[in-house]
């Protein structure tokens, strides 16, 4: 029979003041299997720990129970002590007789009785504990970053600069994300391209970064430290190494389609470069716009390409990569235009969204930095900006605040005034949210220095009349109706998860929140981790955020990833689920409930991926056959604990 030692701590008077520790030790010495039982004033002190060590050796104890304070305080202490005496750490259990007993009771007899039950319960548990070693997992010391916006770029660079290989996957032909479309950035009004392009170049030049553009994640399998990614690399039909950016091909390309980089404000050819500073710096053939390759319908671009960079035979490729950690920075999109019909979006050409306006403001934009109306290329003199277009509208649109719109609308109004000095900017707003370093001052500057007119209220109607856009609204502060004959309306459209985020989340097996953003593991304490161990979140994919926040989170995610990659092996608590295959019928109910996807069915039986299992035990309570249980907290252990807790 296993030999158990019990050590009852006085904790000075903290325990001994309410629990008769001598009596407890004596009673426990009578418990079946207990061959040693003693009390001491401070078990956690060196002499206290030595008592335990000596007893383990002298009495040949198989396991020990320390009746003391909460396990959150000294479980590690005592487990280490037991280890040093040659016991497995799981052969040591803590009976919490301080926080859960002596500190909350006054009646000594009853507290003592309860302390004895709590300790017996720990004895029954420890006697049935398996000796387990932490599960050790080798780590593939490379990372995958999904998304080549500012967040993905930052994470990739942080990782690469620390010395780890990174695969950066971007589905569009160039990295840069939405940030590269911006004109200037609040609150400092730096030129967005000026601060981003050096980073993009660094990415392209970095020996630790393998950049894969026009690529998408097809499948992710494996687990922390050992993910396998299948990446679909779509053909661009242009050999980037050969392309000299001579631009001859676009001159002959007969097809013109809307240019997504300028959000449709301009056009581009079927063969094109997304924008001049694109990384990788190469042209791409948009196959959906091209008249066709099978058979080659046109082929003019290839004809004129002197270096012979155009290769119509390019095929999609599946590239498999093994990585130890994954950072998801899949970014955001603007709220669908069709959804904003009430503001005349899509109906009136001079009703723009925020990003379109950014392009108009951009020095490299369709108007070369001049603010002109798309409809007639005239300078707008009255511009109405509408905040919360789609945000904070639980009935019709998105319930959440998109967070950046207050600031960028202020910036838009300000920049508009910088371009059109005699123009008037109106901003309809619900509240101004300008929390952030220098943000409030920035908004004040817009009002005070640039005379932007803030109107608190909602717009009720927008319609076109005599070449003007009539904006009806209410100024709730002044309490009067407002009617503006605007030349242009700019909507601060809501941010939403980028298209395909849901599909991506499914492939990664990470959860989405109710708005479709990726869910962090804990809203306060684990904001950059996903619920899946080894997968981290960065940027607006997790929630609307501005550039500094996205960058901060990206660096945070990189640091978290580095915490994994910096180790040769990972260690995981071994108190995980265990399956009795004789009992398992493969119904899959446990698979349904596992929050970590650690269970799967194979040949009609469930299998545990011990690396993913966190040991919560929900599977064991769900299984009708007790075919799955958590090591060291098995139904047998609990049933014995119940028995002694009730005095049996």
């Amino acid at each position: 029979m296993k030999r158990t030692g019990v050590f009852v701590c006085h904790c000075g008077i903290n325990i001994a003041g309410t629990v008769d520790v001598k009596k407890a030790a004596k009673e426990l010495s009578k418990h079946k299997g207990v061959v040693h039982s003693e009390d001491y004033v401070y078990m956690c002190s060196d002499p206290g720990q030595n008592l335990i060590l000596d007893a383990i050796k002298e009495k040949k104890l198989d396991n020990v129970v320390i009746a003391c304070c909460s396990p959150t305080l000294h479980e590690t202490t005592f487990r280490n002590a037991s280890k040093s005496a040659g016991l497995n750490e799981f052969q040591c259990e803590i009976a919490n007789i301080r926080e859960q007993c002596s500190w909350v009771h006054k009646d000594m007899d009853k507290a003592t009785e309860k302390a004895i039950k709590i300790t017996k319960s720990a004895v029954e548990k420890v006697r049935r504990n398996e000796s387990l070693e932490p599960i050790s997992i080798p780590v593939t010391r490379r990372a995958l970053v999904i998304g080549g916006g500012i967040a993905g770029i930052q994470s990739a660079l942080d990782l690469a600069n620390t010395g780890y290989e990174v695969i950066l996957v971007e589905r569009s032909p160039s990295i840069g994300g939405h940030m590269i479309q911006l004109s200037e950035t609040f609150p400092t009004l730096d030129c967005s391209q000026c601060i981003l392009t050096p980073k993009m170049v660094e990415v392209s030049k970095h020996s630790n970064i393998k950049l894969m553009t026009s690529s998408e994640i097809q499948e992710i399998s494996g687990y922390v430290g050992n993910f396998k990614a299948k990446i679909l690399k779509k053909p661009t039909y242009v050999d980037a190494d050969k392309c000299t950016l001579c631009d001859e091909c676009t001159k002959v390309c007969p097809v013109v389609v809307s240019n997504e980089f300028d959000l449709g404000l301009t056009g581009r050819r079927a063969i094109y470069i997304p924008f001049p500073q694109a990384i990788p710096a190469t042209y791409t053939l948009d196959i959906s716009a091209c008249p066709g390759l099978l058979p080659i319908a046109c082929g003019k671009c290839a004809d004129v390409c002197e270096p012979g960079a155009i290769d119509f035979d390019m095929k999609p490729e599946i590239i498999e990569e093994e990585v130890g950690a994954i950072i998801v920075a899949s970014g955001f999109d603007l709220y669908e235009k069709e959804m904003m019909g009430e503001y005349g979006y899509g109906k009136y050409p001079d009703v723009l969204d925020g990003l379109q306006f950014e392009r108009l403001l951009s020095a490299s934009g369709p108007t070369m930095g001049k603010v002109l109306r798309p409809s007639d290329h005239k300078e707008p003199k009255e511009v109405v900006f509408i905040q919360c277009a789609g945000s904070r509208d639980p009935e019709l649109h998105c319930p959440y605040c998109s967070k950046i719109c207050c600031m960028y609308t202020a910036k838009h109004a300000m920049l508009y005034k910088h371009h059109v000095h005699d123009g008037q900017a109106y901003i309809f707003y619900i509240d101004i949210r300008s929390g952030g370093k220098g943000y409030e001052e920035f908004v004040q500057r817009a009002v005070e220095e640039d005379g932007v007119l803030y109107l608190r209220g909602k717009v009720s109607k927008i319609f076109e009349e005599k070449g003007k856009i009539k904006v009806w609204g209410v100024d709730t502060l002044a309490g009067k109706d407002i009617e503006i004959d605007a030349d242009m309306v700019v909507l601060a459209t809501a941010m939403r998860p980028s298209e395909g985020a849901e599909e991506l989340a499914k492939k990664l097996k990470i959860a989405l929140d109710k708005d479709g953003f990726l869910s962090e593991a804990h809203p306060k304490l684990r904001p950059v981790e996903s619920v899946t161990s080894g997968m981290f979140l960065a940027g607006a994919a997790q929630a609307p955020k501005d550039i500094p926040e996205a960058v901060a989170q990206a660096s945070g995610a990189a640091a978290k990833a580095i915490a994994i990659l910096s180790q040769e092996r990972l260690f995981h608590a071994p108190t995980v689920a265990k399956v009795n295959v004789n009992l398992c019928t493969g119904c899959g109910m446990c698979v349904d409930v596992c929050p970590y996807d650690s269970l799967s069915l194979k040949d009609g039986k469930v299998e545990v991926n011990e690396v993913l299992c966190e040991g919560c035990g929900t599977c064991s309570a769900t299984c009708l056959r007790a075919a799955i249980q958590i090591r060291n907290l098995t139904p047998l252990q609990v049933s014995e604990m119940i028995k002694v807790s009730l005095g049996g």
Partner: protein
Amino acid sequence: MVNLEDLKNEAHKLLKEGTVKYIIGYERGTNGLLPIPAFIKNPEDVERLIWDPTCVFNLTRFLVDEKRRKASEKEPDERPVGVIVKGCDSRALVVLLQEKFINRDDVYILGVSCEEAGVLDEKKLAKTLKGKKAKNIEFTKNDNFVVMTEDGKTEISAKEILAERCLECKANFPVIYDILLGEKVKRKSDKPFGSLEKFESLSKEERWTFWKEQLDKCIRCYACRSVCPMCYCDECVADTINFAVTADTTAEEKAQKIKWAEKSPVTSENFVYHLVRAIHLAGRCIDCGECERVCPLDIPLRLLNKKLEKEAKELFDYEVGFDPDQPSLVSSFKDEDPEDFIR
């Protein structure tokens, strides 16, 4: 109305063409009015098949045996087994599919619709006949049953002698089938949980007295469990009988088997057994009523299972046995699940 000849013809065809390896159906027995399960292999034996209001058994239970038999065979016949199912039975099949216990390909479903009627309650019939013995009982086109006794034919309104569960039926025709015999007559029970009403209106102490009296009768013959298609576990957690011991089961594993309920048929142990069974059938029981029918001591087991069926519906809007792809009751949740009972 299901034409028995059609059923025989279909069965004959399936056997003759070798589509199925055998067919589980009903045939006349020798022990009384109720039929016995028929396992028909030869096409000519389809003549034995019957279909009438006495066909109460849920034959999907025998798919559990079939699965075990097949697993033990070296070179199993991979053809499906044909099984005759009523609406309720088909829902059991759906749960078995949902729990991946059987593959859809392993079963060929001959669905029979109960249409306006259902199957009979032998006890109700006995009361109605007041001592006369029924020899034969048939469906009619209207919803009456024709009962043959030693005194000749009488027509009895089906409502009078239908099993309680048929009066509360949710699927009077099969929800899943390969061949359907009879019409898909939509019929909605006005009181799907009618049998609970009387009981639920009792006081707490009355309820306790009732259940104690009932469960104290239990002799743990386990007929309720044995007849239940959902009780397909190799080993029941609720009692100590070990079925699932193999050569690789270690001494520790055997020694550590927990006795949640002792073998003694005393109040505490009988309650553990029946409570565990009830809770394990929550969201799985399709109310075929077999447990109650086979209980030699007439313990009203349906009342237990029906209660949890009702709670599943009312608390979680969960209905059993219509969708093989829905997650199980206890392996799913909704954010808005009630929690008014939680402090």
